[in-house]
């Protein structure tokens, strides 16, 4: 029992962080798996599987199991390096994990657990349930190689875990449609809008979006606000220091409204989940999708080739504002009640090491970006573009995502407001006043 490490993990490959609080089984493909410790040492329990009813879930079985296989393989390599350890792992489904983590952090803690960066980990940090691992971040190997994600792991000047994967957001678009209409990737807001106008005139919508589960609209707010007012302002807002009725916030919504009035977004988006919005792009009814890199896999599975599908960074709106991107990060933490913290620390070092990062984030595993600057990324068009964008062209800063940066309650209300705004832009004043009221209560 002395040298036993149990592992908890959640992660996913082509899906954004979970959104729907209930009946996840019907909406979520199998991609989200969590690792939980079982009572039988060394035995990997089967995941509680959900049946996926999603247009893109009927193919590529092996791919869907990739995240789990990646985790298992990674743990096996760690085991090989430390034959003295007896590792227990259990896998549970992702939605259940979100409620179970509250239980297992307080009682019967494992030695390692996965979670998400920034504000999403704040409740557990503040409740004293995550171990302070600032000591790890002072070590040379981590301090130099993981500097870019340090901010996301920091609360109150201390680091509370390590990242193991992240992915970029941006505009995925139908290159063939752009070529047909003689359009190029927009370099600024005016081109962005004129492109969009051309697409609308051709009888398509510029962007597909499914806002049923609200968070997708959060992505649009993130980008419009980051480009209109900049990263620091956005983070200041997340910290509750800016009124929602502020003129600068209104400027963001004014930009958004231009797109809405133009007819840029698919109609009836409030009915669709993000997966249900994919066919519009696949069928060529929509020319683009502001999404995370996890959208690439289902788009490819649906038959779009790399000649048809391309990516561009969300263009500048306000010339004085530096580029800043959303790049949600998934993380490993040590619960404060863990029994074997030394072995757990060793595991965290192992996870973020350059070789391991190269391995677990490659195309046949997670297919995302490694967090270690010395790792190499898989030769994938979108990963390369994303990596280049995040490492050299996101000088303003890197945000996590609306619902990871803003406190949960504020995020929930705000995303609902965004959806309403996208359907009834005239309700803006009402929405902003409501959000301002929530802001005053939450912070």
């Amino acid at each position, binding site marked *: 029992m002395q040298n036993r490490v149990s592992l908890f993990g959640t992660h996913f490959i082509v899906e954004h962080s*979970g*959104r*729907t*609080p*209930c*009946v996840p089984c*019907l909406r979520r493909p199998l991609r989200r798996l969590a690792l939980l410790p079982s009572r039988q040492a060394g035995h990997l329990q089967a995941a509680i599987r959900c049946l996926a*009813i999603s247009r893109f879930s009927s193919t590529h079985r092996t791919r869907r199991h990739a995240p789990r296989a990646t985790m298992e393989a990674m743990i096996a390599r760690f085991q090989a390096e430390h034959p003295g350890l007896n590792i227990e792992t259990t896998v549970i489904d992702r939605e259940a994990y*979100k*409620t179970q983590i*509250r239980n297992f952090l*307080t009682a019967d803690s494992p030695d390692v657990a996965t979670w998400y960066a920034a504000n999403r980990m704040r*409740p*557990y940090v*503040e*409740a004293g*349930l995550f171990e302070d691992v600032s000591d790890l971040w002072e070590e040379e190997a981590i301090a130099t190689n993981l500097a870019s994600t340090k901010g996301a792991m920091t609360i109150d000047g201390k680091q509370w875990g390590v990242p193991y994967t992240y992915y970029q957001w941006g505009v995925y678009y139908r290159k063939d449609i752009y070529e047909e209409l003689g359009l190029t990737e927009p370099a600024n807001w005016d081109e962005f809008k004129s492109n969009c106008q051309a697409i609308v005139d051709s009888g398509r919508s510029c962007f597909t979006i499914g806002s*049923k*589960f*609200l968070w997708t609209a959060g992505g649009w707010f993130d980008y419009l606000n980051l480009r209109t007012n900049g990263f620091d302002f956005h983070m200041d807002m997340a910290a509750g220091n800016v009124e929602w009725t502020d003129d600068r916030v209104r400027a963001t919504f004014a930009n958004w409204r231009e797109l809405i009035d133009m007819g840029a977004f698919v*109609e*009836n988006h*409030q*009915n669709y989940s993000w997966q249900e919005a994919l066919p519009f792009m696949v069928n060529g009814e929509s020319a683009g999708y502001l999404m995370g890199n996890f959208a690439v896999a289902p788009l490819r599975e649906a038959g779009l080739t790399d000649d048809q599908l391309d990516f561009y960074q969300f263009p500048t709106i306000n010339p004085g504002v530096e580029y800043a991107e959303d790049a949600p990060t998934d993380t490993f933490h040590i619960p404060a009640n863990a029994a074997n913290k030394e072995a757990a620390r060793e595991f965290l070092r192992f996870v973020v090491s350059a070789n391991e990062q190269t391995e677990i984030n490659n195309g046949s595993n997670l297919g995302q970006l490694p967090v270690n600057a010395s790792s190499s990324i898989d030769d994938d068009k979108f990963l390369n573009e994303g990596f280049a964008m995040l490492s050299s062209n996101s000088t303003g800063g890197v945000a996590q995502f609306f*619902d990871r940066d803003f406190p*949960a*309650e504020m*995020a*929930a209300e705000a995303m*609902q*407001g965004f*959806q*309403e705004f996208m*359907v009834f832009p005239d309700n803006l004043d009402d929405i902003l006043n*409501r959000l301002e009221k929530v802001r005053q*209560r939450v912070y």
Partner: protein
Amino acid sequence: MATATSTETPADRGWYKRNEIAITPWLFLAPAILFFAVYVIIPIFQSIGISFYDWDGLGEARFVGVDNYVELLDDSAFEVSLWNNLKWLIFYLLAIPAGLFIALFLNQTVTGIRIYKSLFFFPFVLSQVVVGLVFSWFYLPNEGLLSNFLGWFGMGPVNVLGDPTWATYGIIAAGLWPQTAYCMILYLTGLNAVDPEQVEAARLDGARGWKMLWYVIIPQLKPATFIAFVVTIIGALRSFDLISIMTNGGPFGQTRVLSFYMFEKALSEYGFRMGYGAAIATVLFFIMLFFIAYFLWSMWKEEKGR
């Protein structure tokens, strides 16, 4: 042995033997009472207790008095949920007359009537989740059956679930499908118990059609109507799964009901305001209590009247 027992004086018998008749029912009830208390009664009071606290389920609970309730008064989402609950209560009751008429229609001897009956009962067997999915596809704005159907009559596509004014009614309509089947079954069994002699007598007196139904049949179906009323009211107040499946409370929270709102606030991904959720639950509990008290009272009156 029998004679020996009968000659014993009461004082000779054990305490249990003397009180057997009074105690035995309680012994049989004890497991049920125990579990009902532990899993239902005590949690009710606990939950009312939590509603006076500000608690995220992890850290320290902070006593805030009636602050949660004060906040509810000013919460537009709560108001929307309350109104939606009212809509559910009113329109869900349509299941009762609908169920009655289907039952009357099916209450005949035709070849294969059992098959028709079971087909009509079928929706009640389906999981609410399945019903919700089927209806959300039915309502889809472009591909959906409803929009196509309206298209034949030259009416434009409608987006029932995406329109804040219609979404709740759309969900209620979906809920009525299985609920009508349930009421139908209650009435079918009720119709079996209708006294043929009374029908005969009424017929001799010249009662026909609506009069027969209203003055002779329906009064005899009173027990079935009562049960249908109870299950429909309770069903309306605990509507949750359909909303969760069909709209997830949206568009922008316009289809929430109290139970869904409570779940969102207390247990969903962005929630964990246990105190606030408990306050919503308490309000819902008192609304239900009002109906339950009424049902119990009318049942008690019935018993006494006999």
